[in-house]
């Protein structure tokens, strides 16, 4: 009934709600990747970490009945993947991008392997806070039903933005990322810093995966991720390694991802699959627009192999 009442207004409203819902994994993965890349390494394996995080969160939530324990499990699993990437990349001639691709395949394979028995049972969801109770319109209520992880992600973005500028740890990460030699001169071990930065990045990506399986879409299937982990890496470049930029870009991507379902909800089904490609096309356009062959990217960590 009400669906027809607000007519086409349903599209921007559904996109807003969708942006909030869809963007949360982007926020966590891109913040994690921002930490890793600021330290001078790139971890393309976060896609695999995301999928494995989604599986482990769901499995633990099914077995214990607590979504928060699931979330913790996903964080720990992500930490392990991140630490492994950080450790193996310290060896000479080992390419961090290629290892990332391998971990992407390995993480997804492992998640499918252990996730098989958990496709059927259902797990408890992470809680959401209804901010839309003032309205009688169900679409508004649905759009403003905000999951706690989104709020935590937003707070984390602000905190990281502050921490990179104002804390000792933030400075250490930035020095290692800009010049390993300068870091060594300061008595820092770049490999240790990168190991920890990649570990934290992996933990955040795991949490992003937990959101996928425990809230939206809210179940574990083998098609749970559609490349969010990878798009988040591109998104960090677009955001110029700035955590606040990552948050804004994640919302933008979430909105693009919600375009297809939003149009479908008001009856536009033509070209559904093309709208489904919107986030990928948007990422590609942004990458083309912001890259340049003649100058290095502003704000890029000096040691990052992807911008050299």
């Amino acid at each position, binding site marked *: 009934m009400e669906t027809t009442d607000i007519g086409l207004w349903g599209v921007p409203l559904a996109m807003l709600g969708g942006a909030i819902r869809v963007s949360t994994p982007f926020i966590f993965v891109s913040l994690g990747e921002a930490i890793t890349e600021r330290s001078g390494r790139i971890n*393309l394996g976060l896609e695999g970490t995301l999928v494995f995080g989604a599986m482990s969160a769901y499995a633990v939530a099914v077995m214990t009945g607590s979504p928060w324990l699931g979330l913790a499990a996903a964080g720990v699993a992500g930490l392990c993947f991140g630490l492994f990437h950080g450790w*193996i990349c310290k*060896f*000479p*001639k*080992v*390419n961090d*991008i*290629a*290892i990332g*691709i*391998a*971990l992407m*395949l*390995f*993480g*997804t*394979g*492992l998640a*499918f*392997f252990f996730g*098989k028995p958990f496709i059927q049972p259902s797990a408890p969801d992470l809680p959401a806070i209804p901010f839309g109770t003032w309205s009688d319109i169900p679409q508004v209520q649905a759009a403003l039903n905000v999951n706690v992880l989104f709020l935590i992600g937003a707070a984390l973005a602000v905190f990281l933005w502050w921490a990179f500028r104002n804390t000792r740890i933030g400075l250490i990460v930035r020095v290692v990322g800009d010049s390993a030699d300068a870091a060594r001169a300061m008595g820092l071990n770049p490999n240790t810093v990168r190991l920890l930065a990649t570990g934290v990045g992996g933990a955040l990506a795991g949490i992003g995966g937990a959101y996928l399986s425990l809230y939206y879409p809210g179940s574990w299937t083998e098609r749970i991720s*559609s*490349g969010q982990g*990878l*798009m988040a*890496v*591109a998104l960090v*470049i677009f955001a110029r390694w700035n955590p606040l930029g990552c948050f804004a870009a994640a919302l933008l991507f979430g909105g693009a991802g919600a375009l297809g379902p939003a149009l479908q909800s008001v009856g536009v089904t*033509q*070209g*559904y*699959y*093309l709208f*489904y*490609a919107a986030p*990928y*096309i948007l*990422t*590609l356009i942004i*990458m*083309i627009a912001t*890259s*340049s*062959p003649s100058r290095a990217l502003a704000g890029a960590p000096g040691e990052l192999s*992807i*911008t050299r």
Partner: protein
Amino acid sequence: MTDTVSSADVRTILDARGYRPALEWIARRAETFVIPLAALIVGMVLFSLFILAVGKSPVQLYETMWRGGFGSWFSIQNSLSRAAPLLLAALCVALPARLGLVVIGGEGAIVLGGVAAAAIGVALNGAPSVLVIFLMGVGGVAAGGIWIGAVGALRHYRAVNETISSLLMAYIAIALMNHLVEGPLRDPASLNKPSTQPLADIYRIGNIPGMEVHWGLVVGILACLLSWLLIEKTRWGFAARIAGGNVRAAQVQGLAVGPLIVGFTALAGGFAGLAGMLEVAAVQGSANGSLAAGYGYTGILVAFLARHNPLAIIPVAILLGGIDASGGLIQRRMDLPDATVLVLQGMLFIVILFSETFYGRFKLFNPDLWQRST
């Protein structure tokens, strides 16, 4: 008088018989052979530990894998059929890699190559079969070539990272295929699995005589041989190897790096597109969601395992085709998930990349050790 022969004597004898150059030749090449092989074995041992940890017998697993992949004429043919698209998909990674580019979106080129071939085959229904099959091949190569060539062009002229852009383009290609197969190109008769209209039988590619393996295997092997000749024996290949080593040096030498990058990536994508065309013309009979079967991703592993050498791709693709083929048998016989094969592939991939760190570390492989002492 003594029976023992000093090492100096050995060298003299070897010199006299002309063995020394042979030893040097072997030492020079042994490294690129022994290290990947050792890595393969280490990867399989690690996988055994994993299988033990989940409470199954690794011996039984490898035995099942052997039986499913290479144990009988039937399974060998099955493996070879799966190797055919892997050969072409691996070239899509290996050729750009010689230029220092990591292109991982071959899946997109396979999918679009298949759709283009199917569209041509349906549109030209009624024309002579040789012409149609040829044009389907051209269409597949063109679709894949444009797709990955664009990745190369973006890389060179806009400095867009090719790894990420190629993977994004793969997602876009799959969305495009779904759109075309469920919309404009859909055969109304395909209810459960949206597909394009089936190709007429005369436009299908058959099997190699005496085998249950389609001609795609021959095409794939030929493509590998041609790629090897291109890289090792032509001036373009030489230029590509220089640019892969150091782009700046190549530019100083006056090499046209831009056209080189676009040309190599387009050729690479063309091979992947051809794999899609073969899947349609020889296996599926129409374009549908089965085109995105993951050959593009396994191809990445094949190329890295072969260290981007087109000749080495041939045995590696057959090996991984066999591992792929045994997945079903492992699932049925050992009650393990079908993702078991993915775990093995992931482990092998990581170990192979890790083994890069050992190149140049062993004295045994140093040709100087075997060189003439004065």
